[in-house]
């Protein structure tokens, strides 16, 4: 069988720069790269999504007063870095039921999905959490990839 000759198309590669400067002692530096184009396309959805990196192993349905670590990260946006303490943590994806501009009240933030990864972060690490689409994922059509940037 002769291979097909396909004219290459052009596309723009999303480029982000890493930061390899170590965080302060006992801290971990992390960012979220949102690469799921459908993440904000839930039924009738105009709500706001947040991402939290929590110190827990058990799933919960609310953030219970904790402030989200990453607010409303847009698809393919350039992520900023956040610091958290070294510990065993798990990502929770949340939505605020009342999408009011400026409303960051964590008490009204319900957890919609937990990442199944439970990650033991060590002090001095730098990490990039990549959120990807997974059309066959249930009940949450996402998957994630953790990139080791430093240490």
């Amino acid at each position: 069988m002769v291979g097909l000759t396909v004219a290459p198309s052009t596309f723009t590669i999303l480029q982000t720069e890493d930061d390899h400067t170590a965080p302060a002692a006992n801290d971990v530096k992390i960012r979220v790269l949102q690469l799921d184009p459908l993440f904000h396309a839930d039924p009738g959805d105009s709500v706001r999504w947040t991402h939290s990196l929590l110190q827990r192993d058990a799933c919960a349905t609310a953030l219970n007063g904790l402030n989200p670590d990453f607010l409303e990260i847009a698809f393919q946006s350039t992520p900023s870095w956040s610091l958290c303490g070294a510990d065993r943590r798990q990502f929770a994806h949340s939505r605020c039921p009342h999408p009011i501009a400026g409303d960051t009240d964590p008490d009204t933030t319900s957890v919609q999905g937990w990442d199944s990864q439970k990650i033991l972060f060590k002090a001095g690490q730098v990490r990039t959490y990549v959120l990807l689409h997974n059309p066959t994922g249930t009940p949450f059509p996402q998957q994630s990839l953790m990139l080791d940037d430093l240490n």
Partner: protein
Amino acid sequence: MRGQQQRSFVRIVNAAPDAGTIDVTINGNKILTAMAYGTGSNYLPKDPEPTSV
């Protein structure tokens, strides 16, 4: 040090769910083969020069 050229490092993530596995070529050299969706490469050293991916 004279003559020492600083190198860059690049890392590639396949975040295209409809693309299947991909090969990645930089400046005509295939550097990654059959890279699956949802995976990322290690850091790859790269000379600082105009680059086509």
